[in-house]
C-alpha cells in the first residue's frame, strides 16, 4: 500500500523552513562564538579584532586569520577565577539537582498514586507555575527572604530565632530559588515514568512478602531510573549555565560561570573572553548534552 510513504515528500518540504532557520540562527552563531573566542579585544566597534571582511579579498582574510590565537583560553586556564567559576557551577548544579530529586520524587510518586481522574488536574497544578515568569518566581523569593521579609517575621513571631537571619545573598537562598524554579522540570519526567509503572509489579512484590519499603527500593525505584535520568539532565544542564538565580539570590563572592560570562560581556566589555567562557561552558556541557540528545531520540522512537 502507498500508505507507508504518505506525507514523506511534503514533510521533507516542511522541513526546509525550520531547518534553514535553525542552521542560520542556532548552528552558525556557534561558529561566530568560536571565532571570537580566538580574537583579541579592541577599542573599536565591534569591540574585537580581527574582523573578517569578505569584500577585502582572500589575502586580507588570511592575514586576519593569522592573528587568531589561543590567548583567551590561556587566560581562562591560568586565572583561578575562571576555573573556580567552572568548578562552582558544576558543584552547585549537582547539589541543586540532588535536592530537586529529593523533593520532586515524593511529589511525582504521590501524583502517580492519585486516582486516575485526579491525575490530569494534579499535572496541571504542577505545570501552571512554570507558565508564570521565571524572573517573577525568583523575585517572589526576594520578597520572602529579605532581611525584614515574611520568613524572618514568621520565625521571629514563633520565637524560633531571636534575631533576623540573613537569608538573602547566601547559597541557601540560591538553592531555594533553583529548586523552586526547576521543580516542574523534575516532577514531570518522573511522573511520566512512574504513572506508566504497572501497579501489579508492586503487588507481586508484596505478595512475595516484601514490605512496602522493600518493594519500593527493589521494584519501583529501579524501574523509574529513566525518569530520574531525564529529570536530572533536564535540570542539571541549564543549571550549570544559570545566571538570573545566582545573580539575584546568591552572594557575589563566588560567581558561577554564567555570571562570569555576563560580567565579561556587559561590564568589562571584553567580548573575546566572554566568547571563550561560552566555549568553555559548552565544553563542560557537551557530555550531558549528548546524553540528553540520545535520550530524547530514544523517547521519540518509542513514545
Amino acid at each position, binding site marked *: 500500500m502507498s*500508505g507507508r*510513504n*504518505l*506525507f514523506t*515528500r*511534503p514533510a521533507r518540504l*516542511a*522541513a526546509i*523552513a*525550520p531547518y534553514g*532557520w*535553525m*542552521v542560520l540562527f*542556532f548552528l*552558525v552563531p556557534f561558529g*561566530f*562564538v568560536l571565532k571570537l573566542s580566538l580574537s583579541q579585544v579592541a577599542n573599536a566597534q*565591534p569591540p574585537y579584532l580581527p574582523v573578517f571582511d569578505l569584500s577585502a579579498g582572500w589575502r586580507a582574510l588570511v592575514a586576519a586569520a593569522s592573528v587568531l590565537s589561543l590567548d583567551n583560553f590561556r587566560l581562562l586556564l591560568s586565572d583561578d577565577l575562571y576555573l573556580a567559576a567552572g568548578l562552582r557551577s558544576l558543584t552547585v548544579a549537582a547539589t541543586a539537582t540532588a535536592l530537586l530529586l529529593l523533593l*520532586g520524587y*515524593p*511529589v511525582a*510518586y*504521590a*501524583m502517580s*498514586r*492519585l*486516582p486516575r481522574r485526579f491525575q*490530569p488536574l494534579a*499535572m*496541571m497544578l*504542577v*505545570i501552571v*507555575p512554570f*507558565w508564570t*515568569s521565571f*524572573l*517573577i518566581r525568583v*523575585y*517572589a523569593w526576594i*520578597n*520572602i527572604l529579605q532581611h525584614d521579609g*515574611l520568613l524572618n517575621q514568621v520565625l521571629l513571631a514563633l520565637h524560633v530565632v531571636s534575631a533576623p537571619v540573613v537569608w538573602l545573598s547566601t547559597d541557601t537562598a540560591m538553592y531555594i530559588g533553583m529548586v*523552586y524554579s526547576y*521543580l516542574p522540570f523534575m516532577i514531570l519526567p518522573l511522573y511520566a515514568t512512574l504513572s506508566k509503572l504497572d501497579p501489579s509489579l508492586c503487588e507481586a512484590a508484596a505478595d512475595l512478602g516484601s514490605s512496602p519499603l522493600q518493594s519500593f527500593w527493589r521494584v519501583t525505584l529501579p524501574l523509574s531510573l529513566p525518569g530520574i535520568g531525564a529529570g536530572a539532565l*533536564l535540570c542539571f*544542564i*541549564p543549571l550549570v*549555565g544559570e*545566571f*538570573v538565580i545566582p545573580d*539575584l539570590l546568591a552572594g557575589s563572592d563566588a560567581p558561577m560561570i*554564567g555570571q562570569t*560570562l*555576563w560580567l565579561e560581556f556587559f561590564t568589562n566589555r571584553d567580548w573575546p573572553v566572554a566568547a571563550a567562557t*561560552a566555549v568553555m561552558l*559548552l565544553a563542560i556541557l557537551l557530555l550531558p*548534552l549528548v546524553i*540528553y*540528545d540520545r535520550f530524547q531520540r530514544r523517547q521519540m522512537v518509542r*513514545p
Partner: protein
Amino acid sequence: MSAPRRFDAMSRFNVAALALGLAFLYLPIVILVIYSFNASQLVTVWGGWSLRWYVAFFNDEAMLAAAATSLRVAAVSATLAAVLGTLAALALTRGERFKGRTLFSGMLYAPLVMPEVITGLSLLLLFVALGMERGFWTVTIAHTTLTMCFVAVIVQSRLGGIDRSLEEAAMDLGCGPVRAFVAVTLPLIGPAIAAGWMLAFTLSLDDLVIASFTTGPGSATLPIRIYSEVRLGVKPMVNAICALMIGAVALTIITASLATKLSGRRGGNAAPM
C-alpha cells in the same frame, strides 16, 4: 477489588508530599500577589489594601513602553514559532528519512536545555556579523529560535498520538497530501499548536537573558526593566507588575482549558505540555 487497595496506596505520606509540594509551588506567588495590594511604602510592612502601585505602574511611561515592546515581541515571535515549530514537528514525525535528520532533531532539542547566556551571546554575534541593527527584530528572531523548539516538542507529541489511518483514509478518498493535512491533521493538532503558541508567548514575555544580549537602545523589554529595578532592591511597583503578569497568565490558562472543554472531549489530552 481495586477500591480498598487504591485507598491504601494513597497513604498519608503521599497526601503530605503532594500538599507540601503544591504549597511550596504556590505560596510564594500568592504572597507576592497579596503584597502587590499593600498600601505601605515599605514592602515588608502591611499598610492595608490599596491599588496605588497599580496606578503607579500605569503612570510610568518607561515601564509601559517596555511592556508594549514585550507584548509585541511575544506576539510576533510566538506566531513565527508556532508556524516553524509545527512544520518541524511534521517533518520529524511524518517524513520518514531525510538527510541531516539527526542534526535537525539535535538542533531542535538542544535549545531546550542550552544555557541562555550561550544562546544569547551567539545570536548577538551573528547579528553583529550580519550588520543588523539591534532592536525589536533581533529580539524577536532570538525568541523565535528558542520558542519554536518548545512548539515542535508539544506538536510532535500530539502528532504521535494521532491515528495515521485517518490521513490515509482521506488520501484514499482522493485528497492530495496538503488537502488531507488541512482537512484531517490540522484540526486534530490545533489544540496542541494553540498550546504551543501560548507557551511560546509566555516564554518570550519571560525571557531576560537572551533579550539582554540581543536588544538595542530604545527597545528594552519588560523583564529587562524589572531586572534593573530588582537589582536595586524590592520595589512595591514591581510587585504590582508581577501580579498583573500572573493574572494575565492565569486568565489565559483558564480560558484555554475552558475552550478545550467546550470544543469537546475529542481533543483528548490537549494539556499545555
